[in-house]
Each structure stands twice: as structure tokens, then as C-alpha cells.
């Protein structure tokens, strides 16, 4: 059909002009998305390294190990999160969310883990976000991690806390394990109430199941820790068993 391709009539060139604008738009968007994906991968890998560093903690080296973890985390923030912030350039936080969400979730996981180990408390979203503000050019909107990614990261945190708790029990730090147990239960309860309201809660549903498993693993570990301890207490002689039993209950409930 020769006639139609030879044509470069007014209309046809209007169409071409329009589509070359669309092409530019798509090319730029895709390039940006790709750069964001790469930045996100870097954040993931390096946040995971921070998490491994935290797990190097033992009863005897806690301060030292956690100091290094915090330093590493700060490096992740300054190097890799900063690059993500730069690539996003203050826009498309929601449009490109899927491209950076995995990295941000892992970062939340690492940051909240560090904070919990240091202080026993939960690092708030506001605290994380205010730490990110200085990274961006003051002329653009600062990257704000959204509630969803924060909550998804928190859900993963419980898996790491489970690992931590079992290690702590091995190290004899039963109280620390109990503390983790209470903390994780509280997060689980709160998320259980929130999860159905989350935007696209399919991921979250899976994570809730995993989280419950983690809670149960911690509880089982505390259970067997307590049994070992009770053996220890009672083995001295059955006469004093009754008294010790009440002591034990008292001790445990005060944890």
C-alpha cells in the first residue's frame, strides 16, 4: 500500500511529533526506573551486611559490634540511600515505588534492628525520615519513606529478631530473649490490626504468616529455656521445689 506510507501530510506529522514526545517521556521514565532499581539493589545488599554485623553480637562484645553496625548503617545511608534520593530527584515517589521498595524495606529492617539492639525500642518512621532529609538537594522534596514500606520492613525485622533471640538464649541471656519476645508480640499485634488496611496487602499477608511463625519460634525457645532453668533450680533437691517454683514464677512474670 504505497500511498499511505509516502504520506507526510500535516495530520501524520502531528501524530509523529506527539509520539516522539511520548517516546522521549517513556525513554526517560524507563532510564530513571532502571537507575532507581540499581540503587535499590545496592541498598539491599549493604543493608543485609549491616544485619549480618548485628548478628555477630554476643554477650561480651555487644557495644563494639553494635558500634560498627551503626557506622556501617550510616555509610549505607550516606552512600547508597543518598544515591537513591538523587536518582529520584524529589519526584515519582509513588510512581516508582515498586522499583525501590525492596531496598527501602531492607534498609528499614537494618535500621530498626540496630536501634532495637542498642536501646530496646522501636525506631520510628519519623526518626528514619528525618535522617533522610539532609541527603537531598534542598530545592527538591526530600524522599520520605512511606508507611507501607516501613511496615513491610518491620515485618521482616521480626525474622531477624527471632534469630537474635535464639542466639541470646544460647548465650544465657534469657531476659533479653524475653524482651525480644514481648517486643515482637507487640509488633505482631499492632500489625495484625493494621495489615488489612494496607494498600496492596498480599505481600503483607505472607509476611504476617512468617511473622507468626517467628513469634512461635521465639516462644518455643523461651519455653525450653525456662524448662532448662527450672531443671537447674529444682535439681538441688525436691524438698525445696515448691518454694523455688513460686520464686521462679515471680521471676519470670517480672521479666
Amino acid at each position: 500500500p504505497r500511498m499511505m506510507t509516502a504520506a507526510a501530510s500535516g495530520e501524520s506529522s502531528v501524530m509523529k511529533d506527539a509520539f516522539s514526545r511520548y517516546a522521549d517521556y517513556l525513554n526517560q521514565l524507563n532510564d530513571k526506573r532502571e537507575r532507581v532499581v540499581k540503587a535499590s539493589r545496592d541498598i539491599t545488599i549493604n543493608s543485609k551486611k549491616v544485619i549480618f554485623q548485628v548478628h555477630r553480637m554476643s554477650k561480651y562484645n555487644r557495644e563494639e559490634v553494635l558500634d560498627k553496625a551503626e557506622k556501617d548503617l550510616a555509610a549505607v545511608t550516606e552512600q547508597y540511600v543518598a544515591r537513591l534520593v538523587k536518582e529520584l530527584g524529589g519526584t515519582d515517589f509513588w510512581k516508582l515505588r515498586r522499583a525501590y521498595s525492596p531496598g527501602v524495606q531492607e534498609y528499614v529492617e537494618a535500621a530498626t534492628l540496630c536501634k532495637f539492639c542498642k536501646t530496646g525500642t522501636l525506631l520510628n518512621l519519623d526518626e528514619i525520615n528525618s535522617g533522610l532529609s539532609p541527603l537531598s538537594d534542598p530545592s527538591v522534596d526530600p524522599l520520605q519513606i512511606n508507611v507501607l514500606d516501613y511496615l513491610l520492613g518491620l515485618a521482616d525485622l521480626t525474622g531477624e529478631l527471632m534469630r537474635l533471640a535464639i542466639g541470646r538464649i544460647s548465650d544465657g541471656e534469657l531476659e533479653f530473649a524475653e524482651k525480644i519476645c514481648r517486643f515482637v508480640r507487640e509488633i505482631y499485634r499492632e500489625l495484625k490490626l493494621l495489615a488489612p488496611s494496607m494498600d496492596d496487602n498480599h505481600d503483607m499477608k505472607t509476611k504476617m504468616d512468617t511473622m507468626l511463625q517467628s513469634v512461635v519460634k521465639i516462644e518455643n525457645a523461651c519455653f525450653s529455656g525456662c524448662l532448662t532453668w527450672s531443671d537447674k533450680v529444682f535439681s538441688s533437691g525436691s524438698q525445696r521445689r515448691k518454694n523455688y517454683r513460686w520464686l521462679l514464677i515471680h521471676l519470670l512474670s517480672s521479666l
Partner: protein
Amino acid sequence: TTLEKQFQDFRHHLDESVGLRDRIRAVAMEIESATRLMHSSLLLGHQSRPVPEVLEKAKAQIGVLKELFHRLAEILLECPGQYYRFHGDWRSETQTVVSLLAFMHWLETGNLLIHTEAEEKLGLNNSEFGLDIEDYLVGICFMSNELPRYVVNQVTAGDYDCPRKVLKFLTDLHAAFRMLNLRNDFLRKKFDGMKYDLRRVEEVYYDVKIRGLAANVGFWPSYW
């Protein structure tokens, strides 16, 4: 034309069905919301808060549920004979309700919440709108799934007599279920899972027994 006339009738019919279903789903979602709050309160039970405190919060929702089931019943009254047409729309929420009520009842009395008691708690005792028996049974299986975790946490908190009581309860319940001829359906699958609960509770009971912790304690209410 007849054809147009017929499809106009259908349109009315379908629109009514959709309206009905939307209202049912709305109530079902409120039920879900109430059970979420209830569940959240009962989760504190795993942290060994005193039973009465745990129950009090949860019980506050029973009134809400009653009201909601009353509304469901009223909607269904509008279309007699269609209970099972819309059953799927409130089914899983009802199963969760049963599981929570049964757990609370067991915490309070040590007994299984009977089907008629469940209906009564939900204000369904003398209405046309009843509690489907299979839903009740599935709910009971769900409750059974919670018990191993409860027992573990109770022992951790120093209540060494709990495993014995739960084991007795679960053994009887399991035996009762075994009397039923279940088809290869959802209920059967849930029941098959109950044996893992039973096994886990046996193990916990074993753990306290072998350590001599499961002694004859005396401070348990008389109805046990």
C-alpha cells in the same frame, strides 16, 4: 417485546441480588473488624496477663457481634430460602467468630462451647437464621490450632498444670470429632490438622511431667 420484558425483570432480579449481597458483605466486614479487635485482646492471653482481664476486653465485642448477626438475620429474612445462596459471604468470618468464642468459653469454664451455646451467645437461638454446623466445627478446629501456643506460653509463665488440662480437653475433643464421617473437604482437612495440635500438647505435657513440674496443684477453680 417478551425478550426485553424478560431481561428487564432479570435486571431487577440481579440488581436486588447485588444489593442484598452488598449489604451482607458490609455486615460481614464489620464482623471481621470486631473479631480482629477481639483477637487482638485475646493475643494478650499469650503474654499471660490474668485471664479475667484478657476476657473482659474481648467480651466487650460479643455485644457488637450479636447486633451484627441480628442485622445479618434480618437481611436474610427478606429472601427466605436463600440462606445458602449467600452463605459464602459470611462463612469464614463466622468460623473465626466461633473459634474466638469457643476459646474464651474454654478459658472461663474449661469446657467446649456447645453449638447451641454458640448460637445463644450470638443471639441466634430462636431465629430462622442459625449457625451452620460445619461452620461451627471448622471454628472449633481453628480454636484447637491456638491451644499448643497457649500451653507453651502458660508453662513459660509458670502454670505447670495447664498442659494436663488442655491435653484432657483436646483428647476428648479429638475423640468426639473422630466419630464423624467427614468428606474430603475443608472441614476434613482442618480436622486432620488437629492431630498435630494434640501431639504438640502431649509433648509439652511430657516436658513438664518428666521434670516433675506437673505436680498436683490445688488452686484451679472447681469446674475443672
